[in-house]
């Protein structure tokens, strides 16, 4: 018979499982028998950005860039899919007056000057406008675009940037409305867009079957003829099934992947695990810790599966751009922390893993807003799976290890500070002469060493030395991975253009991590830092790593940049300031203050502890 604690523990895991399972099922739901077979349509292949992808991915990535969301709200405020938007957009030119494609409020305009230029009223909350609302002022916009383009990129104002951004979004829409994008008709070379195909057909050439089916589908969709639409989509799919059978499986898998949004799912679940880990320190440690641990294993499986699917679809090693590095770093952090949690069972690694996992997936989410399709093609010189697999993976794992160590350092400092706060509170409650001291707290029957006591008597427990060991171990890995990765990058450069080391910003960023690791490890070996010192240095390591990962990308952008990168720069600086603050707090002699609050019992407790390490924090 299972005890209540076990029931609860597995109940937690089951809840996570149910949530994941429900999402897996939801994403797999096919089209209803009656009505439009939109899902089947969404899985049809097109080419855009140099790769064959389902219509679904094309529609989502375009809408994501324009609307900042993969869905949109129609006139009735109902949420509709990207594929529906694409269909309406493609009908714009074919339908008199533009049809609903012109009416959808998808253009996000927040800048007051741009709103003024287009004679639009600010619409707080949504900030979305339809093309029909400002098409009369497109001429004014064009004048401003021409002016902004003539300004050198470095000197553009925020307004210039916003004007160009909106113009780009409109251009993306117009290309779809004019049927110039995506490329749908397969040929031996470049695929043709429906617009190109229609022009050729006007010249007398027999239209390609794909063009006929697509045209039929669009027509039926406009007329509300579901049967006709479904028939055309079926024939459309049958063509590819016959001519390019290798595509069908991949594109429908990608549609499933898009529908599931596995990284978003993981991000949400990691957040819940973090909460569970924190609550476990307050009480019911064993149950909550085990429940959270196995739930995290489950979520990590989803994360792993999603990474694997990306690798399969793209035919590339896991890291190819900034977006994929973010999801890979999150994955690495989670796995590392799971291993630590398995060894130590104190919820520390759970908290660190879930926070880093959730944060990196959040970063990935925002990166996707900028990129649209996150599986872009590589520049010619980067087009090599061998070096991507070795150098890039190694470097990214190095970042991972640095962040794990850094966030463990943060946890260390938080534990130290909260230990002081707890001692202050208890000292006040008990009065200076309170004989009971920390032992007066309720007995922590279900807490292991370093768990509940972790936040109260941090310095007398083994937690301090355990954490320091973890940080040290991870830093050793970070050193190895960063060094190897950096040197492999040099070898790649030597192999590709004959220069092992060029001192360019990205290389220097990687070198900074290696130097920082070497500094920490040598400082520790030389006895210059001990537990607290290594934790503080690891926290500062977060700044070095965030610079190497992100900061170098801002160098060429300049201070007057706009849009996403300016926002990202703000968050980078904010992150670094937080880390500096944490490191600063970590350098305060908190342990001494804590001890001074309760001299007699603390000394007794310290003697009772098996580990003497706590004395020279």
């Amino acid at each position: 018979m299972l005890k209540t604690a076990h029931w609860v523990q597995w109940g937690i895991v089951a809840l996570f499982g149910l949530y994941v399972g429900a999402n897996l099922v939801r994403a797999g739901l096919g089209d209803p028998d009656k009505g439009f077979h939109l899902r089947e349509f969404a899985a049809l292949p097109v080419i855009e950005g140099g790769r064959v992808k389902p219509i679904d991915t094309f529609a989502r990535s375009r809408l994501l860039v324009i609307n900042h969301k993969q869905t949109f709200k129609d006139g009735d405020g109902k949420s509709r899919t990207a594929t529906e938007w694409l269909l309406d957009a493609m009908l714009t030119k074919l339908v008199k007056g533009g049809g609903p494609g012109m009416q959808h409020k998808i253009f996000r305009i927040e800048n007051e000057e741009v709103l003024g230029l287009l004679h639009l009223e600010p619409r707080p909350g949504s900030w979305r406008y339809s093309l029909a609302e400002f098409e009369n002022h497109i001429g004014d916009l064009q004048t401003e675009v021409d002016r902004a383009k003539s300004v050198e990129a470095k000197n553009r104002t925020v307004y210039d940037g916003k004007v160009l951004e909106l113009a780009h979004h409109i251009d993306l829409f117009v290309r779809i409305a004019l049927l110039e994008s995506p490329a749908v008709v397969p040929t031996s070379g470049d695929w043709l867009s429906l617009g190109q195909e229609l022009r050729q057909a006007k010249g007398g050439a027999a239209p390609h079957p794909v063009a006929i089916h697509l045209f039929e589908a669009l027509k039926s969709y406009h007329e509300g003829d579901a049967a006709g639409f479904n028939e055309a989509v079926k024939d459309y799919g049958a063509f590819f099934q016959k001519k390019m059978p290798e595509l069908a499986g991949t594109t429908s898998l990608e549609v499933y992947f898009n529908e599931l949004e596995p990284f978003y799912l993981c991000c949400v679940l990691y957040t819940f695990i973090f909460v569970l880990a924190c609550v476990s320190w307050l009480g019911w440690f064993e149950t909550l810790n085990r429940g959270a641990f196995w739930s995290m294993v489950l979520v990590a499986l989803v994360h792993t599966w999603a990474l694997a699917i990306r690798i399969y679809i793209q035919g590339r090693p896991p890291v190819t751009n900034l977006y994929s590095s973010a999801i890979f770093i999150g994955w690495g952090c989670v796995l590392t922390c799971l291993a630590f949690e398995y060894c130590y069972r104190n919820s520390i690694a759970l908290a660190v893993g879930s926070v880093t996992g959730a944060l990196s997936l959040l970063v990935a989410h925002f990166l996707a807003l900028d990129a649209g399709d996150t599986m872009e093609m590589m520049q010619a010189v980067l087009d090599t799976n061998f070096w991507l697999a070795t150098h890039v993976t190694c470097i990214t794992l190095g970042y991972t290890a640095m962040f794990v160590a850094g966030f463990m350092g943060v946890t260390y400092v938080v534990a130290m500070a909260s230990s002081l706060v707890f001692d202050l509170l208890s000292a006040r409650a008990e009065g200076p002469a309170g004989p009971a001291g920390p032992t007066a707290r309720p007995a922590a029957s279900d807490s292991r060493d370093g768990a509940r006591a972790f936040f109260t008597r941090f310095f007398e427990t083994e937690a301090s030395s355990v954490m320091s060991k973890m940080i040290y171990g991870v830093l050793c890995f970070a050193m190895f991975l960063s060094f190897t990765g950096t040197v492999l990058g040099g070898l790649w450069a030597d192999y590709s253009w004959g220069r092992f080391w060029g001192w360019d910003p990205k290389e220097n960023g990687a070198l900074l991590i290696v130097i920082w690791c070497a500094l920490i490890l040598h400082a520790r070996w030389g006895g210059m830092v001990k537990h607290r010192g290594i934790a503080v240095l690891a926290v500062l390591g977060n700044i070095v790593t965030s610079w190497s990962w992100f900061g170098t990308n801002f160098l060429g952008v300049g201070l007057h940049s706009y849009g996403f990168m300016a926002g990202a720069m703000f968050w980078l600086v904010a992150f670094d300031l937080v880390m500096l603050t944490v490191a600063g707090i970590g350098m305060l002699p908190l342990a001494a203050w804590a001890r001074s609050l309760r001299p007699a019992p603390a000394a007794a407790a310290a003697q009772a502890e098996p580990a003497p390490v706590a004395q020279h924090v």
Partner: protein
Amino acid sequence: MQNTAIQAGAPPTANGHATAVTAEPPRVASRLPRPPKSPAMQVLEVLADLRITVVLFALSLFLVFWGTLAQVDKGVWTVVAEYFRSPVVWVPLKIVFFRAADVRGAIPYPGGWLLGAALLVNLLAAHAVRFKVSWRRSGILVIHAGIVIMMLGELVTGLFAVEGNMSIAEGSTSNYTEQYLKPELAVVSIASDHKDHVTVVPTDRLRRGGLIADSQLPFDVVVDEYMVNSRLVQAPPDTKLPTVALEGKRWIAQERPEGAGVDTDQKVDLASMSVTLKRKGTGQVIGSYLLTTHLLQPNWIEVDGKEYQVSLRFKRTYKPYTFRLDKLNVSYYPNTDKPKDYSSFIHLTDPSQNEDRDVRIWMNHPLTYAGETFYQSGVHREPGVGMATTLQVVHNPGWMMPYLSCFLVAGGMLVHFGQNLYRFLERRAA
């Protein structure tokens, strides 16, 4: 765990850490008394201090960081020369404050050569003081041997490596490389034996400006203005500046900022300079000229009945072999203008080696020939000629060193950290 590493000269507990507890048992005391040390050993022990290592690492960290920030304004090679391949660098205060404040002035800071040398001395001293062959220390020895090789490799590269470029249009041949970082003044006179007699003035001398008088030059040269990077603009009708003629119009050079290291499109800096030529001895002005790397054709100048070709051109190195570009292949990702691959189909002839064969050079597939390596670098349209390929040509006697170093360091780390991990797991199992 930490005992496996090189220890500082002083015992770990004696470093005066603020909160270190004095009650620490004097573990090192048992090793005393030692035999008296030689003065050389005493010096070595000071040099080998791990605290020096940590300070040097911290200094290097800021050097590398500032050297990155400096690339916002300056070209990467200028920064490399100033920051990394120099003993001392004057870091502008603006850079020191992370470009957050616009302050004038600069501070002296140890450059790459100095810090590298100091680290090397510190490392060698540490090993000299504590050299011991044991399984436990083997990883550390191998790691540091690898690091030494890597640092020496960068030294060898910095001193001896030569990078050049060979640009060949489709269907034409080339037998020389150009160094885009080194524009030089070339004065060519046709001697009586129909051979070109070439005199060149190197970049550094040109940058300094002023009067250049040399017995090898047929006239004195005064550099009026030297522009590291420039563009040609149409000359106003009343200009007093020297001009060049191109497509039936007059052009003057306008200075542009040096291409910054952080620019996403790395372009070659096209230098220009205006010079005044004077007769030797008398100082009589022959004329003022605009010389620019924008133009491939030299200026023809007649002095005392003799004709000279004067030009500012990228430093050339002539080779005993000839490359002919037969075909250039550029493939793109479908429906994009993003190149997927460049290939140059080259015919190589070298009479001195009896070589006469076809080779293909493409992305990530360089050709190694005659001690040099040829990399596919880029493709461009040469006005009036057609498509041309650019090959990067590198001669680096130290190219092997990073490979060896990487192998040693990675292997050493595996051994060392592996030992740590093994002991850690063993203790956990116990």
